[in-house]
């Protein structure tokens, strides 16, 4: 069960830093130069050691926070909701004086990104949602979002990864502090998304407020939220288009990092 990736590892001294926002401490990675890109991570974790960050930072100044409760960071006031995260990251964008920034949110981070954008798009020029959670499309007796918490880990990996072996983690090999970060992340993910399950019933109603060019990037083999769910998102956001990444599941930025970065660069480049 999620998440499987710890907080900052050995590269901590080199890349992780903290910044105080609205009375809470945000831990983040900053890498690269140029146009700012705020990356909001998946329920599974940030995993900055995977290639996606290095590749993305060749094109952008990537700022990637750990959500409060993940990694070494604390929950906001010991609790917190997705609303809190939306305001926190809007404050972060203001604090860092972002202009024409790119906002990228994956999975749970996509939900947070959408919640930010229905509030204010002022500091951003482009929105990229990667297999986002967060909205309800189908009827009350159907699920749009797989119940990740009702699945054994092996079953979860089959739904979330095109190649489940890629997502497997041998927890027995990890250090105690890494395991602690994983456990804390699991609790935080649960806190934010347990009920209603991984969505805000009112969010879809307001997605029309997103006035930015929006790219919905979807792993062709994602069965946590399928490309059909992505089509629902596309219809709800006025200037959105949906692109499918082959041989990727719920985490295209991990399974197909080159394609992930190419699609973002092409999208931002052509629609400036």
């Amino acid at each position, binding site marked *: 069960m999620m998440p499987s990736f710890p907080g900052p590892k050995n590269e901590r001294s080199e890349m992780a830093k903290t910044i105080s926002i609205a009375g809470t401490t945000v831990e983040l990675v900053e890498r690269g130069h140029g146009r700012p890109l705020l990356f909001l991570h998946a329920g599974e974790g940030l995993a900055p050691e995977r290639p996606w960050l290095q590749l993305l930072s060749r094109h952008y100044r990537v700022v990637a926070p750990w959500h409060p409760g993940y990694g070494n960071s604390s929950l906001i006031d010991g609790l917190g909701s997705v609303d809190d995260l939306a305001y926190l990251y809007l404050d972060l964008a203001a604090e860092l004086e972002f202009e024409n920034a790119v906002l990228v949110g994956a999975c749970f981070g996509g939900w947070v990104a959408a919640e930010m954008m229905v509030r204010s798009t002022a500091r951003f020029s482009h929105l990229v949602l990667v297999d986002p959670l967060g909205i309800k499309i189908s009827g009350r007796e159907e699920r749009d979002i797989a119940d990740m918490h009702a699945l*054994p880990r092996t079953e979860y990996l089959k739904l979330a990864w095109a190649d489940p072996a890629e997502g497997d983690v041998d927890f*027995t090999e990890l250090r105690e502090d890494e395991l*602690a970060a994983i456990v804390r992340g699991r*609790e935080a*993910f*649960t*806190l934010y998304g347990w009920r209603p399950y991984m969505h805000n019933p009112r969010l879809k109603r307001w997605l029309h407020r997103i006035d930015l060019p929006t790219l919905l990037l979807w792993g062709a083999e994602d069965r946590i939220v399928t490309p059909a769910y992505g089509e629902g998102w596309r219809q709800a956001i006025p200037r959105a288009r949906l692109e499918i990444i082959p041989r990727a599941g719920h985490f295209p930025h991990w399974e197909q990092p080159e394609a992930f970065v190419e699609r973002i660069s092409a999208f931002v480049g052509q629609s400036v």
Partner: protein
Amino acid sequence: MRVWYFSEMAYHPAWEEGLKRGSLRVVLPSSNFDPKLGHGLLNRYLDEFALCDEVGLDIMVNEHHSTSTCLTISVPMALAILARETKRSRLLSLGTPIANRPDPVRVAEEMAWLDVLSGGRLEMGLVKGAPYEIAPANSNPANLMRRYWEAHDLILKAMSTTDGPFNWEGEFFHYRNVNIWPRPYQQPTPPVWMTGLSVETGRMAAERGHVVGTLLSLSAAGPMFEAYRKRAQELGWTAGPDRFAYAAVVGVGMTREEGLRRANLAADYVRTSPVVAEPFTNPPGYNSLSANIAMLKAGGKRGGFVRDRHGNPVEQTTASIEQLIESGTCFAGTPDDVYDQIKALSDSVGGFGNLLMFGQGGFLDHKDTVANITLFAKEVMPRLRELDPAPQKAVAAE
């Protein structure tokens, strides 16, 4: 010592199917429940509870949801019947899973009503609930204990406030006019119980003077009771044995063989209880950070709470009756055997004043259950009373 008879009111006819499917809880469809068989079982179990009143035992009822291990889905419903069918027994609700209940004021109302109906015989357990209760309730496990404590405080305030209404705008619960009728028979509230396995629970219970109970495992009981006594001492009072409860399966017979046979049948409760589809056994936030780290390190293996005398986990699903006696999970044999085992365990954890007696479980039939209850009441109970002749109710410093 007081003894509280208890049965989970199991629907054992579905166990074979549940074991085959790997889960007796949450995901076992109710097509495996035959309502006609259930009708007979529920009435039989309530008769067995009522018998306790005649022979001088107290009564404990619990609840679970979405499971073949326990048909009681509402403690107050069962206790409402028993309040009318009994005259002397004290009635222990152990308890209401208050962090899974959407409406704490309703809990306060039901408990107060039961207390009035029974003439002040209610003892009120406010419990966290088992991890697999999270899914049927769909309550958020990541803030379970914050919700627990807010519900706890609200329930006690609702029951003890006589000049209401009062206002409550908390993190989880919101009311503008709390003013329950009836108010409880016992003032300011019936005695409050908690359950747990940890040192932390022991401390928290001590700070409120509540009774604390633990289940089936002496290796958890010792440290928890010790933490309670220590915290009480720090707060300026001495916690007597009446603050502590210990739950175990009990099988007593005219011969050792008969007692072991009864305990062995009732112990199927212990063997079936942990058979739950894996994803529902450890919802994030339910268990502590350190317990979860230990589980990940062990490759996802969970140690159950039944431990041997050296603290090593006992495989609950296959444990023999001898192993379960060794781990303090079962007391079994002749009346002498059972008395000796209870006394030894009580002594080893500093003394408990309440035994929660699983006197029925699964395939232990009506005849055996009646014999188990009556023989225990006749031959063991009087000696346990002598063991702790005058339990002094401790009073919190405040």
